């Protein structure tokens, strides 16, 4: 008997030669339909098309520079209601089995994403223009969406996660900032939301000339790598002031947003320069940790994304930490600057240990400079991103948000191959002073 698993690459040359002899000329597979041509809608600032000839559907994403931070004072959630109603109306107008959409409303931006049949892509954009930037959804659609949202909020009522979310956003934006309020709003607001105020929220979100659109799929493109933006990024929108949902235990940010340079990122960053640690004590069974590191603006984006991936790998290792329920690491683009955020749910008695582990990680990764080890992780990072963005709508959503925030879309493949071990290690070393949130029971009597 022989060992089944031979090392990758063994017998390569011999087999290639044999294969060349074995294969006959195979018939050509049927060609795909001609690519769709899309024009920049009149309501959009820019349309970027990314060709994927072998995709049977098109992912469309529309990024808008206004989010839940622009909801009226004391009325959080109206923007999300409006965005979801617009999406639902577009789906209804185009019919079952033609398009599916979703609205993602963040504190300072909104991304509407559609998955569409290729032949419906232009109609989807036109209908979105008509509904979102024009007449608005029907009263019936608004009522349906309002009821659906109320059901969700009723289910979430009394969940500690709602308060955790507010505290986490306050960590990034500062207490008192309207962006800390729940983007989905509250049950009281949603249940009482009138058609007129929802429509006013829609007009605030859907401002003609601000939208960045990205289409990914079987479409005509100037060239897949011609991804450098032609438009400057959008400055952070004005926000209302509302402290109704803000956790008073979290400090305000030490630096305000900086003006954005034309054609570059929205901020010179970093988002803050002094560390902070806050504890919100609640009688709950989990502890939720958030550790946010400000990212210097001069760091290459791909290096920051790689760093986030490495941190995720290290913190979510196999075998799993018995005290850890879940952990995620993501790069958040705020107008004030880019931030690398680690969020974890842990057993309360594992909280201090895990917090230390997170805080020590950047310096540990800053020492990782072995080229072979780095190349292995770079390959895994690249493959993981390719898999994650295989659905066209996922790729479109990420790209549209990037186009809005940074004025350009990262040419990922070029960037990742030019990434070197020293760049990644330097990025880890350059992370700024963290802000820490510990939300849970106080087992240590207030000591860190």
């Amino acid at each position, binding site marked *: *008997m*022989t*060992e*089944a*698993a*031979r*090392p*990758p*690459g063994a*017998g*390569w040359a011999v*087999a*290639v030669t*044999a*294969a*060349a002899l*074995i*294969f*006959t000329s*195979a*018939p*050509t*597979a*049927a*060609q*795909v*339909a*001609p690519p769709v041509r899309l024009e920049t809608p009149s309501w959009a600032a820019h349309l970027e098309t990314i060709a*994927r*000839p*072998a*995709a*049977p*559907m098109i992912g469309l994403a529309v990024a808008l520079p206004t989010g839940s931070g622009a909801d009226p004072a004391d009325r959080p959630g109206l923007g999300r209601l409006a965005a979801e109603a617009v999406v639902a109306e577009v789906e209804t107008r185009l*019919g*079952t*089995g*033609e398009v*599916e959409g979703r609205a993602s409303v963040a504190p300072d931006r909104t991304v509407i994403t559609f*998955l569409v*049949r*290729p*032949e419906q892509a232009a109609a989807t954009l036109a209908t979105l223009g008509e509904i979102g930037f024009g007449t608005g959804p029907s009263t019936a659609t608004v009522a349906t969406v309002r009821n659906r949202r109320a059901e969700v909020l009723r289910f979430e009522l009394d969940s500690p996660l709602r308060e955790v979310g507010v505290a986490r956003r306050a960590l990034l934006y500062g207490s008192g900032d309207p962006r800390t309020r729940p983007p989905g709003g509250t049950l009281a607001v949603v249940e009482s939301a009138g058609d007129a105020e929802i429509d006013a929220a829609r007009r605030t979100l859907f401002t003609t000339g601000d939208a960045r659109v990205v289409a990914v799929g*079987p479409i005509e493109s100037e060239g*897949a790598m011609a991804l450098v933006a032609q438009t400057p990024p959008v400055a952070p929108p004005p926000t209302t002031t509302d402290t109704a949902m803000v956790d008073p235990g979290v400090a305000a940010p030490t630096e305000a947003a900086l003006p954005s340079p034309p054609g570059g990122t929205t901020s010179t960053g970093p988002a803050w320069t002094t560390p902070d640690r806050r504890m919100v004590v609640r009688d709950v069974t989990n502890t939720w940790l958030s550790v946010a590191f400000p990212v210097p603006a001069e760091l290459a984006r791909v290096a920051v994304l790689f760093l986030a991936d490495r941190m995720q790998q290290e913190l979510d290792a*196999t075998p799993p930490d018995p005290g850890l329920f879940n952990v995620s690491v993501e790069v958040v683009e705020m107008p004030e600057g880019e931030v690398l955020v680690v969020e974890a749910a842990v057993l309360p008695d594992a909280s201090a240990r895990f917090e230390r582990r997170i805080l020590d990680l950047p310096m540990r990764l800053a020492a990782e400079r072995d080229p072979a080890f780095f190349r*292995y992780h770079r*390959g*895994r*990072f*690249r*493959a*993981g*991103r*390719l*898999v994650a963005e*295989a*659905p*066209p709508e996922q790729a479109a959503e990420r790209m549209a948000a990037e186009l809005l925030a940074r004025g350009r879309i990262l040419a990922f*493949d070029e960037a990742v191959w030019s990434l070197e071990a020293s760049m990644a290690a330097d990025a880890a070393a350059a992370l700024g002073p963290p802000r820490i949130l510990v939300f849970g029971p106080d087992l240590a009597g207030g000591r860190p």
Partner: protein
Amino acid sequence: MVPTRLPRLGRILAITAFCAASSAPLVAQDSAPRDSFDLLVARESADPTGLPRILILDAPGADLVTLRLSVPVDPGVDPTTAAPILRRLALNRIAGTAATLGAEVEAGASAAALSYTVTGALVDLDHLAYILRQATAMPLESEGFAAARGELEAGLARIGETGEGRVEAELRGRSNPAEASIAEVRERVRRLSFQDLETVWRTTHDPERMTLVVVGDVATPVLLAALSGLGSERRPDPPSAPLPPSPPVRDRPDILRQWYGFAWRSSPTFDPRAVVTAALAARQLRDERDGYEAYVRLWEGRSHDVLAVVGSAYSRDAAALRRRLQALPTTLAASVDDASVRSIVRRLQWNVLSQARTPWGRANLVGRFLETGAPPDAARRYVDALVDLTADDVRAYLEALADDDPVAVREGV
């Protein structure tokens, strides 16, 4: 049963006939570009000795590649016992390797085959093929055989603890003579030895019987080079102590409502009329919700589909539920029209496109047809047949079902 009236007979028969055709023509050479569904047409390579049948779904310029390898399960092999354990052991073997590459792996089982799907970066092709070699290698007892057998047994016990699970299992067993009852399956699993598993592996995991679907921009010689060593043997474990007996399982669940199930052994596998009928029935039952809850199942067998409806109600509504479910083919036949068929077909087309938008979804979609020996354009032809369906086609199908006596199961107080 065979439908008695079949408008557009040629199209429908084409769908069913190709499943048995092993020497069907390759991709139609005259197919002009039409629509997105052409992406479901594979390109068949020559048949290299000692390797699987290889079909390629081109994805020009793609950085990702998906390899889906299916291993046919012989009619003589009970797919409910050995196959899930082989699948579990293979996943145990490959999941860690895949994670180190940033690749994704799946393992599936249909009535006809086991399948292993791996998706990763094109530059890692050789490593991805290595994962497939690991997946199809001879299992070892030390890899978790006892745990996998226990997991399967526990799963079967769970099914038997609910009214829903008991009715479904009974319907499946009685509508398909090849399928055993849930109690029999549990007994077989309990008795399954590692030697039995090894025997099943030896009779099924022959590379020449496998089918490989590739989605990506892959040069075929490179692909062939990566594929040698599929289905290899390994040094067996030393003999181990016998496994402890499983704890007894309570055989009678607490069921509060009356459950009814009816199943019709409907048509050859992959009949689009069955899918449309199931969707129409589900829509109708969902819209009614009149004192009971009910749902529809479409089970693909090795050679036939089974259409089943299962529902439950408290005793007050139980009789109405039973009549409603049993008469479903008749009431559906009376109400079906072209508009409702068109609407369902459009939704099903969406599901196909939506699944095919990722390389692994495209591989699984097309691979399900190809693992039965169908020609490379089987999935495309299935969609064509779906689009051509009319209300008359579906009505004829429903009338044929109504003429047949369904398998009926009752469970409850």
